[in-house]
């Protein structure tokens, strides 16, 4: 046995330790004080900085680099730039993932000693005079003009100030050695795939509990008894329950919750991060069942703070403890995430208003009508604008079906807008491990082509309903089958 083998036996959480969250997220109700831009704010402990600011009416956490648009939490997953702030002297901190601490000093960054709001507003309004690629065209010769221009423009680009704290306390990375099968993603697909894999299996998910991005939301809606009348939700919850049972029958599978894969190195290396701790692992086979990323769609104002995708909503409410009581939530879209967002908002005490973009889903419509949720159809988001620090002005326009429009325009003010398009698959790690990918816009983005193409990486595309044939996989010990995504609902 290699010396680092024993490292695999580090205390990963057992999957059976998962607890369904109650209707109220159990958070320490103690209050902490934080400093924001010199002001003192009071918030509950145990919530993230982004949620603490949100509940204090502050949604614009940063400004966009060129136009200075206000930005806020959008992905709630540490991917986007919306929540980057300067915390305790450290720049570019993802405040959607950082828990509040007493006395924490939080500041907006890059709002500009040099590149002030005035200049950003000028660029925003006069964007035609700053066309794409202008930095490649203007002031390029003679050379001294170029040098002077670059020297002048660099300080204007808002690259921030360097940290004033010492980061040298990084723990050494730990090597987990080699694992036969690594499954990334503990949603239903990942759970089924892990349960169907023989031998040594390591199951990894960035969430603390299994169940994927929708899991906690489904659990909360089920616990509130609100699955009735929603076949889409009931089926998703049922699948999750069965997948968890399958996994519970395999106590040998190790589950690393709260762990994120941040790099793939050919041929078989993975770099993981659990909090501040980096881990490396070599995998015999990788099963990629990472969930989808939210897609918000392309419409004017699609970067406005307060506009979220469903997965971000689930995380903010169930992981971070955002309170929905009394909020007006406009939910636009269709499918499982649309109804799950609606049911979650209702269970959390918000007032959902629904704009359904599907002409199917009749059972769910009937259930919504029964619950007196205002429901509109034939509309899509046309434009979003801020109507105050924590209010949105949403213009809905008719959705054209075969060239015919079916409804009139509708303007609405709301606290929160949730756009539930079908998500797009995450593909970065399979790509880094050499898996060939091609664009499939019907399924949201880049998906693997063909079968295998010489890579050890097997991919369960996220953002799709997957039909994982667990039984069939059992016929081939040690080999999960390539999975056929179901056709997306039209």
């Amino acid at each position, binding site marked *: 046995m290699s010396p680092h083998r024993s490292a695999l036996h580090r205390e990963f959480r057992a999957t059976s330790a998962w607890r369904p969250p109650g209707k109220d997220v159990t958070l320490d109700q103690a209050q902490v004080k934080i400093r924001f831009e010199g002001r003192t704010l009071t918030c509950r402990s145990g919530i993230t900085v982004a949620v603490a600011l949100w509940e204090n009416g502050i949604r614009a956490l940063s400004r*966009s680099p*060129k*136009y200075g*648009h206000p*930005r806020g939490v959008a*992905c709630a997953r*540490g*991917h*986007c*730039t*919306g929540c980057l702030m300067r915390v305790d002297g450290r720049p*570019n901190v993802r405040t959607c993932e950082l828990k509040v601490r007493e006395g924490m000093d939080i500041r907006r960054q890059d709002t500009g000693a040099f590149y002030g709001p005035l200049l950003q507003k000028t660029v*925003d*309004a006069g*964007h035609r005079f700053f*066309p*794409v*690629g202008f930095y490649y065209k203007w002031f390029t010769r003679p050379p001294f003009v170029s040098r002077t221009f670059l020297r002048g423009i660099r300080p204007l680009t808002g690259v921030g100030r360097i940290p004033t704290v010492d*980061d040298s*306390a*990084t*723990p*050494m*990375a730990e090597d987990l050695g080699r694992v036969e099968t690594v499954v990334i993603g503990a949603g239903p697909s990942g759970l089924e795939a892990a349960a169907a894999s023989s031998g040594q299996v390591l199951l990894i998910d960035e969430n603390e509990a299994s169940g994927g991005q929708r899991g906690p939301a489904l659990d909360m809606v089920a616990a509130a008894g609100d699955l009735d009348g929603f076949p889409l939700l009931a089926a998703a919850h049922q699948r999750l329950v069965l997948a968890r049972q399958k996994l519970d029958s395999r106590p040998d599978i190790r589950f690393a919750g709260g762990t*994120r*894969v*941040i*790099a*793939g*190195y050919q041929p078989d290396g993975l*770099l993981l991060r659990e909090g501040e701790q*980096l881990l*490396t692992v070599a995998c015999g086979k990788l099963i990629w069942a990472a969930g989808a*990323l939210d*897609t918000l769609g*392309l419409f*004017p*104002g*699609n*970067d*406005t703070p307060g506009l979220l995708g469903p997965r971000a909503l689930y995380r903010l409410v169930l992981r971070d403890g955002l309170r929905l009581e009394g909020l007006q939530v406009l939910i636009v879209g269709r499918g499982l995430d649309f109804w799950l967002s609606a049911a979650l908002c209702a269970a959390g005490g918000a007032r959902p208003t629904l704009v359904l973009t599907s002409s199917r889903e009749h059972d769910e419509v009937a259930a919504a009508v029964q619950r007196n949720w205002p429901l509109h159809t034939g509309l899509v988001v046309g*434009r*979003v*604008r801020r109507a105050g620090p924590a209010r949105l002005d949403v213009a809905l326009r008719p959705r054209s079906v075969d060239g015919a429009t079916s409804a009139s325009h509708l303007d609405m003010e709301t606290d929160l807008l949730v756009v539930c398009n079908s998500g*797009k698959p*995450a*593909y*970065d*790690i399979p*790509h*880094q491990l050499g898996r060939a*990918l*091609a*664009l*499939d*816009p019907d399924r*949201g*983005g*880049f998906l693997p*082509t063909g079968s295998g193409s010489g890579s050890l990486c097997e991919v369960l595309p996220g953002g799709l309903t997957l039909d994982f044939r667990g039984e069939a996989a059992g016929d081939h010990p040690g080999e999960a089958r390539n999975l056929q995504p179901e056709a997306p609902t039209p």
Partner: protein
Amino acid sequence: MSGPKIILCRCEDVTLEEFRAAYREGFTELESLKRYTGVGTGFCQGKGCLSEAAAELAALRQIPPSELRPTTIRPPSEPMTFGQLASLEIPEPAAPEES
């Protein structure tokens, strides 16, 4: 006062209009569009926008989307500090074989 813009890439503040303008200027590959407009080169390294940008490009070029391949997504997938990088024990690469 200008109206709200359609933002394609949030990290680098690239609008859909700018992406289309770059295409009209003759940048017709995803790779060159990425370099010219900055789409997908920001903090998120394209998680937020490359799928959308590729779909838009397929529509502009009127080609089957399956012909489009992603641009290289280099590791790591999220920003790391030099301290973290230094904490990694990188095995010595094997000496290249003489051919």
